[in-house]
């Protein structure tokens, strides 16, 4: 018996270790992928542990449902109905409008979701790009402003013919709902919703999520790569995704609520990293409008997000809470 003991011990060790290793059959942890079209963009979903595909099917249905509800271009969406009637009792639109009001409030109005008429004048919502003159923009000023948005008990009401565009929040909100569903189901994964990244859970091999931050100058390169664990939302707002060029000037799709013109400054892009997809989405737009220095002040005041700023001169600034997550790339640290 004494001689058998080490043999038995060795066998127990081997089988225990095999349990810890990734299962070669790997059905519970195999990756499943889907690439769908929703919210006017491509959405790539990679799930781990969705053996029967039921969670993927639920997420696909959810994204299509949100698309139908929150699209500003679809004729039969709940948002279009609000823009036509000035009222809605849609709970999701109310939630997004409330978040926009909150972020607009502490960013000095840098986020404004009533700029749809102005965005149309610039051609960003139609693809027929043009530079409207000052008189045309000033004539639109009476239609815009967050003060035209009122949260009611049941929903949202708009005054003076104002219209909402939820493009600055909808994908982030979608990522958040998907994350909640995945966590309920015990499924890990990475969602890329038109460039917004949401990580959920832990990869099957236990390693961190490795996420690249795109270089605004070159779509084939990254400014940085980040190692992140658990559920994180990453959203970039920049001047390089949707824009047009005229007379040598770049006009990006993010509009400054003060000037009603595309944001123009030294900032090429800002990426927000935080726990909430909705917050990350709303905040990245506001931070791009504010510029880096005001954004740094906000970061110090709030302490509830991390950020990366990419300046036109090539300098990359990373907040101190994120600096130790950088796997590769050169950057300056924004200290507290």
């Amino acid at each position, binding site marked *: 018996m004494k001689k058998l003991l080490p043999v038995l011990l060795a066998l127990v060790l081997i089988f225990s270790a095999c349990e810890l290793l990734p299962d070669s059959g790997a059905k519970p942890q195999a990756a499943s*992928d889907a*690439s769908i079209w929703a919210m006017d963009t491509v959405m790539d979903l990679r799930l781990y542990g969705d053996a029967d595909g039921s969670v993927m099917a639920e997420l696909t249905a959810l994204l299509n449902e949100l698309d139908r509800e929150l699209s500003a271009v679809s004729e039969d969406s709940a948002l279009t109905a609000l823009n036509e009637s000035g009222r809605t009792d849609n709970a999701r639109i109310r939630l997004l409008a409330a978040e926009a009001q909150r972020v607009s409030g502490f960013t000095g109005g840098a986020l404004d979701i009533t700029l749809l008429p102005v965005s149309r004048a610039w051609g960003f919502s139609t693809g027929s790009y043009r530079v409207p003159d000052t008189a045309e923009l000033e004539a639109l000023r009476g239609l815009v402003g967050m003060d035209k948005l009122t949260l009611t008990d049941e929903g949202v009401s708009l005054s003076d013919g104002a219209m909402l565009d939820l493009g600055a929040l909808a994908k982030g909100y979608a990522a958040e709902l998907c994350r909640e569903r995945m966590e309920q189901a015990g499924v890990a994964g990475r969602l890329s919703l038109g460039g917004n990244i949401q990580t959920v859970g832990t990869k099957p091999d236990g390693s961190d999520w490795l996420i*690249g931050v795109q270089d605004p100058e070159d779509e084939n390169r990254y400014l940085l790569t980040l190692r992140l664990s658990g559920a994180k939302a990453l959203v970039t707002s920049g001047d390089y995704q949707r824009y047009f060029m005229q007379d040598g000037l770049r006009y990006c799709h993010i509009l400054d609520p003060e000037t009603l013109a595309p944001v123009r400054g030294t900032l090429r892009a800002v990426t927000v990293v935080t726990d909430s997809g909705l917050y990350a989405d709303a905040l990245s737009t506001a931070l791009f409008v504010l510029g880096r220095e005001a954004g740094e002040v906000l970061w110090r005041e709030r302490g509830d997000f991390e950020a990366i700023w990419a300046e036109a001169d090539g300098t990359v600034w990373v907040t101190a809470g994120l600096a130790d997550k950088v796997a590769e790339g050169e950057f300056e640290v924004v200290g507290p």
Partner: protein
Amino acid sequence: MKTRTWILLLAAVFLVLAGIVAWQYLGAKPAQTAEVWADGKLLRTIELSQDGDYRVETGLGWNELRVRDGKLAVTAASCPDGDCLRCGPRNADPPIVCLPNRLSIRFSEAGTLDGVVK
């Protein structure tokens, strides 16, 4: 039980475990491929180890793809903006996307990024 026997047994255990790990992580490494998706449907998977030319139709338009030296590029497309043509030959994410044709081309390779925020 002699100490020597214990050492031999533990060494054997270590060797078996090392073999299992090597099999899991090296043997299971997938060949590099590109997946061509259109509007939520996987149209085809392309092996990047073989040179080839492909044409894909999405219902909204067409794109011509070329694989050379292990990398894939879009060489012609019916889309008006041509963003997909400027993506350059790639063998790793970020995906090549043609928004007008609702086409995305994703790359799978062990050890690459999990995603790209943009």
